[in-house]
């Protein structure tokens, strides 16, 4: 559990903040009050936690390629995400909602992947610098 949070906390925070901000902007732009905002935010936090946990468990599975890992991850998370969001009453399952929320998910997944990749490359660089200093 400690490993799960240390590896994923910053990404979860980014995704959660983005979703809350998007919802707030949508509500503001449509001049529609965001009803039960506190409950919605808690549900979003739970959803983000579950999806990241699924991704964490998936990272222990052996995949032949990075693409296979991402395809598996996206598929499982989309299915679980929509199922859970529907169960929690966060949105109803229809084509428009699936497309819009699917697009938001893919965008956030891509951004999270890019941030992680950048941090990972920085880590590799830091390790090489330390190894270089050792010589």
């Amino acid at each position, binding site marked *: 559990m400690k*490993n799960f949070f240390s590896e994923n906390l910053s990404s979860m925070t980014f995704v959660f903040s983005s979703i809350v901000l998007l919802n707030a902007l949508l509500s503001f732009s449509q001049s529609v009050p965001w009803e039960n905002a506190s409950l919605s935010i808690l549900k979003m936090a739970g959803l983000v936690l579950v999806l990241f946990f699924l991704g964490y468990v998936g990272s222990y599975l052996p995949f032949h390629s990075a693409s296979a890992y991402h395809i598996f991850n996206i598929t499982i998370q989309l299915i679980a995400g929509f199922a859970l969001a529907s169960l929690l009453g966060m949105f109803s399952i229809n084509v428009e909602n699936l497309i819009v929320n699917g697009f938001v998910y893919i965008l956030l997944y891509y951004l999270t992947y890019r941030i992680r990749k950048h941090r990972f490359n920085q*880590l*590799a660089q830091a*390790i090489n610098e*330390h190894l270089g200093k050792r010589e």
Partner: protein
Amino acid sequence: MKLNLQEDKSLKEAIIDITYNVFDRRIQRVIEIVETNNIQLKGEKDGHIHLINSQDIYYIESVDNSSFLYTELEVFEAKEKLYVLENKLEETSFIRINKSTILNMDYLDSVSPLPNYRLEANLKNGEKVIISRHYMKNVKQYLKIS
């Protein structure tokens, strides 16, 4: 306590001489550290048992319930399981880098990022091993990277 370091390229291996006025806990700790790095492991090759200095081992890999000790040019089979060897080599330069490999960090030359958040560890003898994402923290801890 003063520390004097002297380079002598004619030596085949490093010699550590400790001159002390009082044998205290600090001196004992230094000795423990040196002795820990002189651990020897038993490895079998061509039917013969060899005693291998841990400092000569590049990495240890577990394959099909057997552990293999990789030196610069040779491979020996160890009878002990990987976790037993890992415990023996605790507090040394050996760290676990994936489910089946313990790496001697003294022989790590550089790392290269791989897809799926893994690192390829390039060793000084040209070999490559994989550092998996779940063991990255061990490498960071060892190199004191935050």
